[in-house]
């Protein structure tokens, strides 16, 4: 009997999931997003094998080929010291994605746990303490706080990841808080309390599953924004330092040779737009998919 109920439940979920997947596969924008994200991931992972001039990613100088316009030899042209822009963009993707993945894996667990605690213990001192601290971090524009922290820690890839992480956790905390505080009075939570379930069980087994799809959507959307913020930091000289190829750094360096050598900053700039667009399209599609699943 019980098994039958479970199976029905599973079938229902499976059906709605398939329906969502079908909808996702018919939505051209989400598919474009998926393709872009996969393509960038592949390009970034295999950059050393795909890039036409992998050695150009580091300290490489060849003044014979400096500032060359796009050609068959150098599809996106070369920079002021003769490095192939395409190769550097591929390696730049590597660092951007690396940063996105690391930052989000640092940020999501504490943000989610704090949000769960604050939401479940709503109106207690735990809620007040956690949410007031969160509010303070949310009281500054993300870029400004990240810039301040990155500057104080000395600019580097690692420090810019620390800076962005410090700015990012409150957003997860606040969103999970909103969900947790709205379902803490649901019957199944009360039932768990009534049979004496421990707090960790209620937090992670009863409440957490409700937060998974919103957090998943948020992570996808945020990948793009973290990459964007990282590029902005390196554009201002407070992120990845030369000779490591950062997409933002490349745009900033190229801007000095505008307008004659436009390719130096235009192609890295487009590379940023493409990856951010990919993640935001995929994230929006995923949101629709998971919303569909709930119905």
């Amino acid at each position, binding site marked *: 009997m019980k098994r039958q109920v479970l199976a029905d439940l599973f079938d229902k979920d499976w059906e709605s999931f398939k329906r969502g997947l079908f909808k996702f596969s018919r939505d051209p*924008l989400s598919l474009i997003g998926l393709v872009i994200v996969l393509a960038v991931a592949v390009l970034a992972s295999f950059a050393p094998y795909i890039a036409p001039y992998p050695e150009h990613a580091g300290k490489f100088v060849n003044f014979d080929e400096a500032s060359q316009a796009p050609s068959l030899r150098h599809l996106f042209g070369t920079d002021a010291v003769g490095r192939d822009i395409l190769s550097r963009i591929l390696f730049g993707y590597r660092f951007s994605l690396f940063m996105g993945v690391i930052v989000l894996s640092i940020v999501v667990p504490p943000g989610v746990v704090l949000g769960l605690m604050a939401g479940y213990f709503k109106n207690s001192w735990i809620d007040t303490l956690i949410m*007031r*601290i969160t*509010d*303070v*971090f949310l*009281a*500054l*524009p*993300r*870029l*400004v*706080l990240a*810039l*301040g*922290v*990155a*500057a*104080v*820690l*000395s600019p580097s890839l690692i420090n810019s990841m620390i800076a962005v992480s410090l700015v990012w956790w409150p957003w997860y905390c606040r969103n999970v808080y909103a969900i947790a505080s709205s379902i803490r009075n649901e019957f199944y939570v009360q039932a768990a309390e009534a049979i004496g379930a421990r707090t960790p069980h209620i937090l992670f087994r009863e409440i957490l599953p409700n937060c998974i799809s919103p957090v998943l959507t948020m992570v996808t959307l945020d990948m*793009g924004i973290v990459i*964007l913020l990282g*590029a*902005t930091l390196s*554009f*201002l*000289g*407070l992120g990845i330092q030369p000779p490591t190829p950062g997409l*933002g750094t490349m*745009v*900033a360096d190229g*801007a000095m040779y*505008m*307008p004659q050598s*436009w390719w130096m*900053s*235009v192609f890295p*700039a*487009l590379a*940023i*737009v493409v990856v*951010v*667009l990919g993640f*935001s*399209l995929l994230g929006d599609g995923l949101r629709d998919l998971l919303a569909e699943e709930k119905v």
Partner: protein
Amino acid sequence: MSFVSYFARRVAHSILILFGLSILTFVIARVMPGDPARMALGARAPKDVVLEWREWMHLDDPFYIQYYYWMRDAIHGDLGMSLRTRRNVAIDIKTFLPATMELILFAGMLSATFGLMLGVISARYRNSLIDNTIRVSAYFAVATPQFVVAIFLLLLFGYVLQVLPTMGRLSGHIPPPPTVTGMITVDSIIKLDFRAFFDALRHLIMPGIALALGPAAQEARITRSSMLDNVEKDYVTAERCQGIPERVINLKYLLKPSVIATVSIIGLQFAGSLGGAFVVEVIFGWPGLSSYGTNAMLNKDLNAISGVTLVIGVAFMTMNLIVDVIVAYLDPRIRLREEE
């Protein structure tokens, strides 16, 4: 909850956050590796001078006492000396803030006007060619970082077409109007100096667009979706049945409830442009607070970093407070929800 008590609660909340923010900014500027006294005086300063400086800056006192002195001075408008400009940070901020305000206000007006307009058009002609064009462009606009927009504008209008100035707030040959507000466009209008006004306006266009494009796209998307949410409501059908023209329904009855979401997004984006200004000001050589802040950060000018962060935090919070109050005024449900 009455409107007044809602307002009072929000203000009290903001003051609490401001206190936290001041601690955060203070901590940011003090966790820096290295000796602040050495950094201020240079590596070759004699030891007794360094010790005297440490004493003077209370660097040997416990953390909370240092915070007390810093806060006491900050309340009196003294944010400490900038290591780079050798002036008080508060004076520097007073000099650079108006330029940033001018840019942000201009960008805010641009994005609010175009965001709302495009959103309404998009919702009115939903699923048509115009709607799809607006939606796809909005996607691109949201995904494009401000510095990329700025670089493309610079390339197109500044270098290829050469129709707009690429740097600064005013051309060299035009005398700036006397300072009243510090915003050149406003000051020149006060003096009826139209030559300076139009020149300043021309300088504003590119940085303004670079700052406004993303927010405008976001606002258009929100306006469209909230109008489409309301279009299904019974009262709209009722109005349609009464034979009220579609145009009147759209602009008079549909826009009003739909605009609440847009107002709060406009406010958030406007406050957020304080961050975006950092990038845009650097690219267009705009002598504002953000250029000052970026230079301070690149030079590890501690007092300037905390001063700029604090001022931006206060401005950001004030804007958010104003938005919350406006939205709560427009939509009583938000005030009531707060009570739960």
